[in-house]
């Protein structure tokens, strides 16, 4: 029986956020703090011939000037290919080359002007297809020599990731199919645009040889380990203290400002150094979503059943791999969509280019592959004269189906997400021409996403003598409301009022290990750990109550801060119990580790277990759009967005994610893109990289679907990651419905709409 789980409890971070007292990474200030600034590469690919820092080092206020020669170390999440500061060459415009620390940020920035660097420009690889060709220069000639994890590379090429998967016989499948469709689709680079820019403070302690960092990250332990790995020190020598995070969306997991801050801290004699990226640096030199070119071929029968699919995906990691290896592999898997297709062949390759680093972005590859999959699904439906909704339902996963690797799928609310979304958008009825220059249409798209598996979460829960509970865990609040969700689960697991529960900030020296706050994994994994630890505390409290009251603990219940007997009579409040009967310095601490490893739910075909997911996320979105056929401008009128979340621990925070994802997805699809010229981004400022404002907001109807998952805490799965993936294809499918034009390359700009209508010459700028 629950008091808080399932309710729209106000968020526990409410007051600090509406009063402005929340301290984000950029707000932290320390005594004696120095400020850093970075001189960056103006070339996409060049050798560094010489760097003269003499004048800069002598400039007013400057305390340190550091180059890659002073700090020649490499880091990387999957492949250790990235320098803290460029060492002998630069590989993208914006790469950090020289870092300056000074008493004030203004002095540090001004000193940059005094640095002289001689570059020898090298031919650059600016296109991912070119990167594959034999003529392309190698961005990383030493790729084969880098320390790396277990994924595959193709040595002496630009291919830093290669992954193949086959099941059944696709050629036979295509031969047997009544209809075979082939298409090429592309998803572009976009930026997270978290409103809080990348920033970090680092401090070096020469006594211990260790570093302390004040950061804003979604994965403190992974980031810590990556930094320690790059620095060549034991991970216990690097401590991360995490502030409130002003948005991450997958972008705050790898060393960005942290790398520069650490390099400067090493040369600052123990003084903390802050490096705060400007928005322009954040847009160009943090990470982008991994662009992808996807060739998709599907064989389908006239009756609508899909028989075979082959996919060739090319991903662009930019100059360094960061988190892209996982994206290229895990993302490619889901190009199959949430559909039963017996014969499959997937080839995924990722190349280096001399462009901005790409990396994990909300969806971890699923936004790109869902674009391809769901666009083609509609093309098939149109060709065969099938209703797009019915076609998806017909092929969609149901509870108990086998996934690609034989895993039995559990917790599959796909059908309900599709049906409810279709009803909400008013599928089948559209006011086609609301005005002479306007046309309307409706489109639908669905998607599937796994969660990081296996992964684990640890929690320490402390109940103090005053009844307050601290949920000590390394799960930074990145905006998704999970501090609240964890607190709700802890409150009910123990039986205390929500107001008495707090979730302290993460400090890797104190909080036990947690995987990343990513992959929508926290509610599930940390939730399960909380259930176990909470139950221990509850049991001990009931024992104390039983002893105090002279009754059998089995006959007592602890609920919302009070002890009741089985007739629901109040016997004593928890606070009274603790205050009067618990003994000197009483407190309970319970810890628990939860890991999905070894769960019977993950069983699959031999050798393929790694593809399983402890839970699956299924989402569907439908869009109604209005297009101005004279200007090509698309206005999204309404989005119905459904997500199968297992159980909504807090329906309000779940709605926040569904709505927020739809806003982001629509913005990604229509407004956002980077314009490169000769390897340089031309629009690296918010004046020209636009994201949606409240005036661009369509009507959004969030729909919460709850399927049953036997191992989920209170039944809850996850919601945040997939939320922006189905929006772009839903919009594009609606565009096709409105005016019969099919666009396969994101973004959906007005010019592309007019070109597809035959009303504009492509060949403009």
């Amino acid at each position: 029986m629950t008091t808080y789980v399932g309710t729209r409890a106000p968020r526990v971070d409410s007051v600090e956020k509406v009063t402005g007292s929340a301290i984000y990474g950029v707000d932290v200030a320390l005594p004696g703090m120095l400020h850093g600034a970075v001189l960056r590469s103006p070339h996409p690919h060049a050798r560094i011939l010489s760097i003269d820092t003499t004048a800069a080092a002598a400039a007013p206020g400057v305390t340190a000037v550091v180059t890659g020669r002073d700090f020649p170390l490499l880091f990387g999440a999957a492949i250790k290919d990235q320098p803290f500061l460029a060492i002998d060459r630069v590989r993208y415009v914006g790469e950090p080359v020289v870092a300056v620390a000074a008493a004030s940020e203004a002095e540090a920035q001004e000193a940059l002007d005094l640095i002289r660097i001689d570059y020898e420009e090298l031919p650059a690889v600016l296109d991912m297809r070119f990167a594959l060709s034999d003529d392309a220069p190698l961005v990383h000639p030493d790729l084969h020599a880098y320390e790396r994890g277990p994924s595959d590379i193709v040595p002496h090429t630009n291919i830093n990731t290669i992954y193949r998967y086959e099941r059944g016989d696709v050629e036979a499948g295509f031969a047997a199919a009544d209809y075979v469709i082939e298409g090429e689709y592309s998803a572009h680079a976009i930026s997270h645009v978290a409103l809080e820019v990348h920033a970090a403070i680092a401090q070096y302690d020469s006594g211990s040889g260790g570093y302390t960092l004040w950061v804003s990250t979604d994965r403190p332990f992974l980031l810590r380990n990556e930094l320690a790995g790059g620095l060549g020190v034991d991970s216990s020598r690097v401590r991360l203290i995490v502030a409130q995070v002003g948005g991450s969306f997958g972008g705050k997991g790898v060393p960005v400002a942290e790398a520069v801050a650490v390099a400067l801290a090493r040369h600052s004699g123990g003084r903390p150094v802050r490096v705060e990226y400007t928005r322009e640096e954040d847009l160009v030199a943090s990470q982008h979503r991994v662009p992808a070119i996807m060739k998709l071929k599907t064989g389908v029968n006239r009756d609508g059943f899909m028989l075979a699919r082959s996919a060739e995906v090319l991903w662009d990691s930019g100059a360094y791999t960061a988190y892209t290896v996982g994206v290229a592999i895990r993302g490619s898997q889901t190009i199959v969509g949430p559909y039963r297709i017996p014969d499959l062949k997937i080839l995924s390759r990722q190349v280096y280019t001399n462009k901005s680093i790409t990396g994990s972005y909300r969806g971890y590859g699923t936004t790109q592959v869902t674009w391809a999959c769901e666009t083609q699904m509609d093309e098939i439906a149109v060709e065969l004269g099938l209703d797009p909704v019915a076609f998806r339902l017909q092929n969609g996963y149901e509870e108990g189906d086998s996934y690609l690797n034989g895993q039995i799928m559990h917790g599959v609310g796909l059908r309900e997400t599709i049906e409810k979304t279709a009803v909400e958008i008013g599928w089948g009825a559209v006011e086609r021409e609301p005005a002479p220059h306007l046309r309307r249409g409706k489109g639908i798209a669905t998607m599937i996403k796994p969660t990081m598996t296996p992964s684990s979460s640890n929690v320490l829960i402390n109940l103090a003598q005053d009844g307050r509970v601290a949920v000590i865990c390394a799960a930074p609040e990145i905006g998704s409301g999970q501090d609240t969700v964890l607190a709700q689960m802890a409150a009910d697991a123990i039986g205390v009022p929500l107001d008495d529960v707090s979730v302290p900030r993460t400090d890797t020296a104190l909080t036990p290990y947690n995987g990343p706050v990513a992959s929508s994994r926290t509610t599930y994994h940390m939730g399960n750990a909380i259930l176990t630890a909470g139950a221990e505390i509850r049991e001990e409290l009931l024992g104390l109550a039983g002893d105090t009251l002279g009754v059998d603990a089995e006959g007592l219940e602890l609920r919302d801060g009070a002890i009741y007997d089985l007739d629901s009579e109040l016997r004593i409040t928890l606070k009274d119990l603790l205050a009067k009967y618990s003994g000197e310095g009483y407190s309970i601490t319970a810890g628990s580790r939860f890991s999905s490893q070894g769960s019977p739910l993950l069983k699959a075909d031999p050798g393929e277990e790694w593809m399983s997911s402890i839970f699956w996320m299924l989402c569907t979105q439908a869009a109604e759009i209005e297009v101005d056929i004279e200007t090509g401008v698309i206005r999204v009128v309404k989005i119905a967005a459904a997500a199968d979340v297992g159980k909504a621990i807090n329906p309000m925070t779940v709605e926040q994610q569904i709505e927020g994802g739809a806003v982001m997805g629509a913005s990604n699809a229509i407004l956002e893109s980077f314009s490169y010229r000769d390897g340089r981004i031309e629009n690296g400022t918010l004046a020209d990289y636009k994201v949606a404002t409240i005036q661009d907001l369509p009507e959004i109807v969030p729909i919460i679907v709850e399927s049953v998952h036997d191992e989920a805490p209170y039944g809850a799965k996850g919601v945040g990651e997939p939320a922006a993936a189905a929006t772009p294809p839903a919009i594009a499918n609606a565009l096709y419905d409105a005016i019969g034009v099919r666009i396969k390359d994101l973004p959906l700009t007005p010019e592309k709409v007019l070109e597809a209508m035959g009303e504009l010459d492509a060949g403009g700028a």
Partner: protein
Amino acid sequence: MKRLREFEYYEPASLDEAVQLLSTAGDGARVLAGGTDLVVDMKTGRMRPSTVVNLKRISGLNGVEDDGGGTRIGALTKVPVLEASPLVQQRHPALAQAASILASPPVRALATIGGNVGRASPASDLGPALMVHDAHAIIAGVGGSRDELVEDLYVGPGETSLVPSDIITHFILPQPPPGFGSAHVKLGKRGSGTDIALAGVSASVVIGDGGVVVDCRIALASLGPTPFRATGTESLLRSGLPTEALLAAAAESASGEAKPIGDMRASASYRTRLARVLTLRALQGAIESAGMRVAA
């Protein structure tokens, strides 16, 4: 944060003092009005003035007044004041409309009409609106005060005919004749229209007896190196009856007069198309504001 470089800062109490300071500082001097262009330029490094002269203490440069039937607008008048002014809304609707979609509200609250004209962006919102009302600028400078048509101020992208010691003090918009109407339309990246114009069009018409277009003005933004008047199109419209056919021809003509470049924001061919589409919409708006309907 982007930090500003050092500069000398003055807040003169009079125009003469301001002109004096600017003239002494020479090329390195810049006037500060609202700051929405200057401070941005200083942060991006587009401008590094050695001297910044803040005009705010100088009296008499602010406000919208009736000027014997015409309208006198102080150069430091904040843009939201133009948006809300009943006088501007009634007499010069295109200017009120352009003001209402200039940047976003918290930036607009700082922006001034003088600043927008002085910045001379080819994408200027207020420039074309002023042009279709035959606005003049009163300019104080080293040689005293002078009067110039706003449309004559524009010399090139980001450049006016003003020298660093010139200060625009007022705009004078002559009284519109009976039958006058004007409108401003712009397309930015986002639907709200508050982004930098990919293309913008202001139009004004004077409808006379029999519903004939006695006079008109059409000014284009982001369709050439400076905002400019489509005089060929104006000739086409003069003396005609504003039918759908004539307006369509005018729109086509305007797109022919447009000389857009292609850049990262839009291609030349898209801008050319927008010239046609937005001119039609601006003309329809101007005719409606003159109290007329477009005949079939």
